[in-house]
């Protein structure tokens, strides 16, 4: 009999306390952000898909088309092709494609590159209706940034 009433008392008390917590939360400021209207700054360390680094001095990429990134990518999503242009010593890039549908953002390609020619982009707003939209032409993205 005693337990019957004590259970009622402690139980009731715990329920009222719980209600107190939610009541307090009801009048506390919200903690979320209305995403497309407000945006939180993303950390500069964010690892998006890869991009070629633009060497501002030479106004071109650093890549020497050695193909290390292509070989070491665990998901086989990079395609690099270089060609020796006439009158130039180095090979120049003719193709640098990334199949982002398969990329696991592991960062192997960035670390393996002998010339440190790759970086992570800051793009996180990626959404599209087709698979092909995620086949990025990294070389073209670089051309666009060129001055």
């Amino acid at each position: 009999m005693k337990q019957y009433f004590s259970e009622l008392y402690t139980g009731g008390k715990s329920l009222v306390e719980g209600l107190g917590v939610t009541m307090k939360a009801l009048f506390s400021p919200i903690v979320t952000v209305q995403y497309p209207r407000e945006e939180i700054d993303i950390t500069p360390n964010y690892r998006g898909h890869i991009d070629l680094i633009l060497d501002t001095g030479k106004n071109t990429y650093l890549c020497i088309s050695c193909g290390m990134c292509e070989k070491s990518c665990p998901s086989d999503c990079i395609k690099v092709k270089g060609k020796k242009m006439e009158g130039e010593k180095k090979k120049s890039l003719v193709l640098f494609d990334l199949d982002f549908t398969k990329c696991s953002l592991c960062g192997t390609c960035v670390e393996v590159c002998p010339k440190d020619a790759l970086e992570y982009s800051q793009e996180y707003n990626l959404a599209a209706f087709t698979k092909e939209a995620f086949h990025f032409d990294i070389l073209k993205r670089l051309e666009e940034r060129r001055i």
Partner: protein
Amino acid sequence: METISILPPELIRMVIAVIIIISFLFLNAIMMGYAERKIAGHVQRRPGPMEVGSHGILQMIVDGVKLVGKELLIPFNVDRTLFRVAPLLSFTPVILPLLVIPFSEKLQARDLNLGLIFIVTMGSVNVMALLVGGWGSNNKYSMFGAMRAVAQSIAYEIPILLSLLAVVLMCNTFSLKEIVAAQQNIWFVFLQPVAFLIYVVAGLAETNRNPFDLPEAESELTAGFHTEYSGMGFSLFFIGEYTNMFIVASVATVLFLGGWHGPHLPYGEYLGVVWFFLKVYLLLFLMIMVRWTYPRVRFDQLLNFAWKYLVPFSLVNLLITAVLVKL
């Protein structure tokens, strides 16, 4: 003009009242839906609906339009008649109790001298809807929901009746108007606090609200009795649920919280409705807060609670009331 004069004025009054009440039903469902989502949002430290209209105020209307516009899917192998009847069955009986509720001294469609009994009866019909819907859906989850609804309402109707009876004993009438009038000086919640608490708890169970939302318990039964419903069928259940909540809250207001009584207002016999609605929505606010705070009880615990705590307490309460009143 002639045709109208043939009709008895009483009938015209009833027709107008029904029209007002039905439109109020939809308004109430929209308001409650919005309030529930907003409160839930702020309880969880997020803003809730924000996009449609200022602070999402039109959200429920847009949702309603979407639901009406949806195809009424009837799954293969269901009992078609029952499946279609169930939403109507949940919607219709909730209109009727509103006809006898005295919103203020003069705003009442019809004062039945058995008003309270009428409301309780109509409340039980609602369970039929859940049973029919769950049975007709031919889905095991719906079936569970329906069975739970029936057992739950049997267990909870008794304490509800007993707690209401305590009030009836005190004022010797079933007419809601007279019950409110009897609270001119002191609200019954102060004379009958136990009955009030029992009624509120049992009312939560009666309306299938968390923590007693077993018939729809979504983490166990996906959506319980309305698993198979979509579009208009679903929204009728939805409106029915909110109206049911409104009725439970208004009965609590009428019986315990003094109905239209409150500080004096001009045209008191009509404007008492302000106090009435204030009290009702305060109770509804409490119900919403409860929903967003507690986990769900288990089925046998629910029944245990009803038989072990609510029924004995209300019986003892009734006994004491009877003895005190008749002395």
